[in-house]
């Protein structure tokens, strides 16, 4: 017991510099957000506000039109999650369960798409979207365009992770269902998929967070303010401004990041497990 205590102290001491650095910006964010405007630009800077104030929250909510922005982020992230899962789940099932001649090639293809990140292709993505007619104009400046891009760039990771999980689900359960006269498609639907729900949920979480946090594609594709995502709106509060209302920026950043951080913290154990499974394969 005493040994464990001593080891705990050593472990925390080793980790403490990193933990301080990780928490530092969060602390700055929360405390700045709760300062009144007059205190933000006071010298020397203090950690805690002298007067706690929530005034920056409603102010930035107006400034950044955060309600609309959150709505856009939710629509875009959910849309891209659905798209990615719809194409990745069947593909991952095929990779995990079925034998086909082109499987090694397919895996190589996924690997290659991983090496082409959106930021490298952004000019090509922009031109491709501009060439596709949609509504009055093109896919540029539409949420659908961004959904398609996010979804497509999630495919490789999703297939990789899902297939690792799917391989870990015992085959016997499905095979027992076939013997009982259940067709393969029905066995997948009624037996396999319910068992795969946790894996699919983790995958959805990763894709959702990726969409919520993405910056370059949103910056390039979404021109109108009423279509922009939270991340983009918050950066716009800082970028290219002559005077920045830092307490409002920090309030907006809090609203944009804390929910994601909480969900992520709650589910990170599953994420680590999933990546571990994938890495071992």
């Amino acid at each position, binding site marked *: 017991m005493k040994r464990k205590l001593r080891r705990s102290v050593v*472990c*925390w001491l080793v*980790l403490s510099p*990193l*933990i301080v*650095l*990780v928490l530092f*910006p969060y602390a*700055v964010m929360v405390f*700045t957000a709760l300062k009144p405007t007059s205190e933000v*630009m006071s*010298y*020397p*800077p*203090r*950690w805690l506000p002298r007067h706690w104030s929530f005034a920056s929250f409603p102010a930035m909510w107006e400034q950044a039109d955060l309600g609309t922005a959150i709505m856009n982020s939710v629509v875009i992230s959910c849309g891209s999650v659905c798209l990615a899962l*719809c*194409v990745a789940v069947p*593909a991952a099932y*095929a990779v995990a369960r*079925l*034998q*086909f001649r*082109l499987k090694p090639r*397919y895996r190589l*293809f996924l690997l290659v*798409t*991983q*090496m082409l*990140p959106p*930021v*490298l292709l952004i*000019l*090509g993505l922009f*031109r*491709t979207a501009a060439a596709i007619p949609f509504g009055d104009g093109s896919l540029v400046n539409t949420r659908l365009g961004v959904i*398609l891009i996010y*979804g*497509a760039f999630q495919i490789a990771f999703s297939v990789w992770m899902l297939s690792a999980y799917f391989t870990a689900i015992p085959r016997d359960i499905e095979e027992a269902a*076939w013997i009982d006269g259940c*067709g*393969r498609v029905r066995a997948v639907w009624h037996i396999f998929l319910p068992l795969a729900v946790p894996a699919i949920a983790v995958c959805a979480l990763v894709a959702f967070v990726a969409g919520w*946090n993405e*910056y370059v594609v949103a910056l*390039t594709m979404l021109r109108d303010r009423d279509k922009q995502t939270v*991340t983009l709106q*918050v*950066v716009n509060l800082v*970028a290219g401004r002559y005077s920045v209302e*830092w307490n409002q920026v920090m309030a907006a950043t809090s609203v944009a*990041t804390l929910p*994601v*951080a909480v969900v*992520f913290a709650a589910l*990170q*154990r599953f994420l*680590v497990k999933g*990546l*571990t499974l994938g*890495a071992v394969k």
Partner: protein
Amino acid sequence: MVSAGQASEQGQPAALPRILPPFLRPARHGLPPLLLVLPSLLLATAIVVYPFFVIVRLSLSNVSPFGQLRGFVGWANYAAVLADPIFYGALWRTLIWTAAVVGGTVLISMPVALVLQQEFYGRAIARIVIMLPWALSLAMAAILWEWSFNADYGMINGVLRNLGLSSGAIHWMARADTAFPVEIGVGILVSIPFTATIFQGGLSSMPTEIYEAARVDGASGVQQFRYLTLPLLKPFIQIAIVLNVIYVFNSFPIIWVMTHGGPDNSTHILVTYAYELAFGLGRPGPAAAISVLMLAIVLAFTMVYLHLQREPT
């Protein structure tokens, strides 16, 4: 691929599979694998592969600032890029940026993963805290650090003053020789969670018996790390390095948000410079050329690295 005869046992019409091309023929139980893979293949081709060819074509064309193609110009865009002094500065900085961020990340993540693998009080909390930057958008992290490093009102200068380490206001973001290292530090910090996770996966997959055997034989902790952990962890270190190099080499938001490549182009890396050329300065041709060069660099790195790693074994 399973023969059509077996498919008929499952109540499939036997004649149908035989006339289909092999890749569409149902596998044993009626699900043609390529049909399952096809949607992902189509989507990825349309949105990842096709734009790549668009960029290659742009890089070989004369492109107006508004994006109209005005004919094939061969290597002119590449020549323009190679004659541009800012490009060389950005290239050099990209190499430093990638090497420093990936190197720093791996060096820090290793002990962090080793510690997180120990059993100690509050481990679950430590894990959550160290994973937190993963949930944070890079653009947001950049904003938070930009404010923390603010010369007059930022908490970094405040803390340094309180510790007696500096007296005046350091203008971190105003000069490249302070701004760029700060950006590298932020890059390392946000890359640690992913890397430490890969290492933890590697560590937890290791057999515990060999450590017991080593302990019985009197191997010290350092010896165990040097001769057991490190060699067994090698494949995971390789994966971490390759993936991190690809991510970090192409990392855009930190530098774009914190300094926008400035002051005076002195913190641009290739990816931010290419974006500036394409969307800020209206020179899509050279921007596309840089994108193609970047891809060539990443590809060359991955091949050479994987090749070198395979040699000794």
